[in-house]
């Protein structure tokens, strides 16, 4: 029986299922215990699984990841919460130089099945460092897997898959969509789910293709809805996996539509959309009717919240890009 859950609750149920399935799963981070995390993603877990498995850590991100690595070396499966996107940087060194590379360094002897959960993106009216989209930094690093969920149904299965994965996974959660609701099959076995590193068409259409992930998937669905009123059908693809990329559905779509717009909140310079544009151009050059266009945050630091509606891609900016694509 599916339950109607918010994305936040779907993640919570997913973490609970992971902890029940594997006694080696431990949850750690700032305020994840008694408080249940500032977004309540870990709500109730400490009460049910105890302080040894749900650890309120000292305030030190580098130590959260560094000790998670040690715990993993000892056979545990740590799930680390970074409180906000902008606070992952003190842990960046441990993530990039240790978490990502230890398996390689040890020629496969050491596995680090660590999940790093990061609420990301803007749109919640927050102060500085609480609205960033740092995913590209991690995608740039071999040895890390990077995913982003966009809706409650996926969020639930994806967090369980990430925790069960043998490689380190950076797991991005679209914080402004935490309160979105959808049906979630909490009892479903992992084997029933779409594999973690598979992208998916979430709306079909033949006229142009929109590719997004995390919070921008809903924006693109809204844009497609608006475009449908005008008689054009946009195909929307939810990437879900950012590294490795799964471009097969994107390429299949572009071969039909000939037009591609990639959307994310992160700035455009050396971003996911740059990578996708390059690869699609290489693999489907003769199918393209127009250059791959991008709708992204601007190449500035994230602005003060009174300006964020201007910074963040919205339906209008997405549709303007679609219009430009049609003009070619």
């Amino acid at each position, binding site marked *: 029986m599916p339950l109607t859950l918010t994305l936040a609750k779907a993640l919570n149920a997913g973490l609970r299922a992971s902890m029940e399935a594997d006694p080696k799963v431990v949850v750690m981070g700032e305020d994840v215990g008694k408080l249940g995390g500032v977004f309540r993603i870990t709500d109730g877990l400490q009460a049910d699984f105890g302080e040894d498995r749900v650890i309120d850590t000292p305030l030190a991100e580098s130590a959260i990841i560094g000790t998670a690595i040690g715990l993993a070396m000892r056979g545990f499966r740590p799930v680390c919460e970074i409180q906000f996107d902008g*606070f992952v940087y003190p842990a960046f060194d441990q993530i990039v130089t240790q978490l990502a590379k230890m398996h390689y360094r040890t020629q496969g002897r050491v596995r680090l099945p660590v999940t790093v959960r990061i609420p990301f993106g803007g749109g919640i009216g927050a*102060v500085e460092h609480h609205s960033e989209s740092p995913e590209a930094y991690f995608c740039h690093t071999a040895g890390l897997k990077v995913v982003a969920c966009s809706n409650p149904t996926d969020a639930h299965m994806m967090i369980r898959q990430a925790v069960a994965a043998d490689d380190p996974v950076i797991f991005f959660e679209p914080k402004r969509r935490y309160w979105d609701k959808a049906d979630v099959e909490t009892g479903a076995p992992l084997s029933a789910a779409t594999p973690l590193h598979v992208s998916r068409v979430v709306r079909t259409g033949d006229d142009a293709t929109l590719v997004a992930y995390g919070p921008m998937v809903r924006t693109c669905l809204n844009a497609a809805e608006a475009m449908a009123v005008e008689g054009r059908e946009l195909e929307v693809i939810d990437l879900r996996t950012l590294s490795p990329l799964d471009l097969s559905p994107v390429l299949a779509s572009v071969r039909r539509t000939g037009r591609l717009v990639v959307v994310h909140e992160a700035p455009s310079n050396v971003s996911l959309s740059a990578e996708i544009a390059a690869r699609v151009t290489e693999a489907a050059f003769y199918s393209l009717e127009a250059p791959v266009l991008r709708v992204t945050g601007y190449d500035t630091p994230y602005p003060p919240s009174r*300006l964020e509606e201007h910074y963040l891609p919205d339906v209008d900016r997405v549709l303007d890009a679609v219009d430009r694509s049609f003009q070619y």
Partner: protein
Amino acid sequence: MSVPETDRSVSGTDRPDALVTPVPRDPRDPEDADTGPVRLLAPDGRRLADDTYDPYIADLADTELYGLLRDMVIVRRLDEEATALQRQGELGLWASLRGQEAAQVGSARALRDDDMVFPSYREHGVAWCRGVDPLDVLSLFRGVNHGGWDADEHGFQDYSIVVGSQTLHATGYAMGVTRELAADGDGGLPVTVVYFGDGASSQGDVNEALNWAGVFEAPVVFFCQNNQWAISEPTRRQTRAPIFRRARGFGLPGVQVDGNDVLATLAVTRYALQAARRRCPVLVEAVTYRMGAHTTADDPSRYRHADELAGWSRRDPVQRMAAYLRGRGLLDDSRAADLDAEADALATTLREGCLRLPDPSPHSMFDHVYVHDTETPAAARDACEQAEPSGQPEPSGPGEPSGQAGPSADPAVVSPLLTVAAAPLHHTRKAI
């Protein structure tokens, strides 16, 4: 609004240091056993004698004693106003200083004009004492800018939200001071004072800063407000030992002071400044209490008992100083009423100013990415111009993140799909 008649230092620029011969070591050796935090006022306002620290405040005139209370009353009142403004949707967030007035005012009033403060995000009381317009502090929390005052004008740097980061900046700044000025000059060096919390003490940055300050004998005072909580985690989750004890391991003096005692905080900070002026960095731990929520987005009932707050309320820093002044005949009902009226008037001015704060222009977001314009921001600026914003944000999460998980956390999401479906063609997209 302007800040009325706040001279930044309780006394002149030279007096406190000239009072006592410079002793760049902890007058209360922490290994002398548990003497407890330095305290000059009992919770009921009685003056406690302390041979070591009494001399550091012996010079205070009656007006200066009264001024300490005035500062505390005003910053508490402004803090209440800011909290109310956030509740009414005028600020995105507010981090209340309630309970920490003595720690902030006592330390800030020990400073000279040429000292430099590196705050965290809760030092509104220090900002006040440094002459920063409270409205400029509110503009950050309203989301109008990331920080709105001139650091050099006030000897008060921008707020720092990334916990602990500013301790390194302070240390580097102080290293700069030693490369420009000699410590044996008149009155010693200008000191850099960095504020941080008990939670921050866990960060690598903070411990590296303490170490560097020791290695380079930087004129820094590390002022830790141990308010017992880092969001939901008690200090015991950050460290097993009292925070001030850590100083010893870095070769610095460490002093613990009752941070709810404005006189003791002033005296201890003067001691610390005196040592730092001669290139002996000092760690001060002010034991205080965060009486409110972590921020307006937080719900402390989830992790701490109400009776804890009741206990600390009996040690309220403002009441303590008021009781002391009454005992000395420096405060009576009519003077207290006048002070409240003054604070109310400032709060009204602050509110009016906040409501009048204009939103920044969208194009201002491209300013100051670099010192000189380069092509990338210019291109982005052009792109922004082309895609004129709709002015209607999408339905999104609530105004502020942390702790919004209660019923109020569910934003009243108007389904954009319905709006869009009902809308006619292109030009009405702007109404989505």
